[in-house]
């Protein structure tokens, strides 16, 4: 469990939406940690040792023990520091529901999003359609709630909000405007940024992410 002198190290990359999930969760819980920026072309010994299977960020190292995969890390954080700002619902069905939609984001939103700036022609067209239909499904899931978690910002909000920092990149390369396609999602994202310091302090500038491609 959480001790007085917890040592927490987060191995991360500033633009990673998966890393952002972990940073937001730690911020929501007010947990101090050491952030270490990884050079993904020259991964540190600690990263390779802590995540030998996938060699990917984010990795959270808690008192020497590594935890990998962003959703697993966020659930871990929620469990260890359970007395503050609960992220997952406690009720099993609501919890399964939040996990389902996070899994949807990872399986159905991420790759088409990536294809928007890595592919061309027909493949790009197909990916744009997929991406937009996923946004609409997520918008349907949000409904009229202020957050995906209901009245409170929670696990599913944390899973999705980092993608907002990539929207400008998606829009530029995918040639669409998210606000036209999913206005409720944009309103939700702006609400998260306005109301949650954990989000506004974590998300990088949209222009900075776009600049990643102008090299």
């Amino acid at each position: 469990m959480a001790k007085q002198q917890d040592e927490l190290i987060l191995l991360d990359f500033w633009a990673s939406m998966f890393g952002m999930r972990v940073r937001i969760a730690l911020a929501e819980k007010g947990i101090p940690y050491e952030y270490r920026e990884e050079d993904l072309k020259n991964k540190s010994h600690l990263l390779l040792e802590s995540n030998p299977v996938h060699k990917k960020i984010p990795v959270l190292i808690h008192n020497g023990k590594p935890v990998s995969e962003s959703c697993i890390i966020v659930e871990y954080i929620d469990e260890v520091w359970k007395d503050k700002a609960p992220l997952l619902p406690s009720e099993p069905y609501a919890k399964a529901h939040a996990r389902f939609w996070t899994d949807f984001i990872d399986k159905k939103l991420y790759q088409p999003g990536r294809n928007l700036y890595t592919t061309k022609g027909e493949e790009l067209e197909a990916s744009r359609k997929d991406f937009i239909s996923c946004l609409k499904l997520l918008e349907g899931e949000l409904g009229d709630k202020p957050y995906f978690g209901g009245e409170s910002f929670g696990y599913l909000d944390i899973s999705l909000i980092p993608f907002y920092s990539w929207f400008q990149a998606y829009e530029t390369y995918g040639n669409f405007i998210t606000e036209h396609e999913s206005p409720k999602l944009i309103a939700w994202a702006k609400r998260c940024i306005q109301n949650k310091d954990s989000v506004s302090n974590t998300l990088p500038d949209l222009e900075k992410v776009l600049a990643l491609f102008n090299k």
Partner: protein
Amino acid sequence: MNDEVILLDYWASPYGMRVKIALDEKGVDYECQAENLQNKSPLLLKSNPIHKTIPVLVHNGKPICESLIIVSYIDEVWHDKSPLLPSDPHQKSQALFWADYIDKKIYDVGRKVLWEKGEDQEMAKKESMEGMKKLEGELGNKRYFGGENLGFVDVALVPFTCWFYSIETRGNFSIEAECPKISSWAKRCVAERESIAKTLQDPHKLYDYYVKLNP
């Protein structure tokens, strides 16, 4: 408690088998509804409108989708018998990590060995073997992945073993030769756990079914 538990399933699905094993381990009474994947039932389409896939667990009218999410749900709701996930947060995160690995590197890749051709199939064969060897290392000399008792990772992986024969035959390699510990573990699971013995399908029956679909 008069729980109504319905499982929408397909006989050959290893994902469905995970859920059946979990329910049986917990001694939960349920009704199994066999789906015709060419003609999906209204209940399936209503319960899983996003993916329209099995398995779906419908518990007192509420649907839960995605096999590992369902198994976690079952573990939480029927928590007083045969716990599948460890209670220690770090150990739990490790179990979730390996189950996720199994989905991405064993199931997804195994499917490619069966359904792809040429270079894609060759690459899948290589990845499949690498994945199995990593699991062989993770199992080590433990009785089960869960330690002395069957756990979440065992439930995640064991259904895949009845598809080994098809993958080995189509891929022309031997998992048993390369991963003797996994092979013994698979036999132990069937010998020691009734939930597994009665759930796993006959590997030859699966192979005949597969060959009809992909001669």
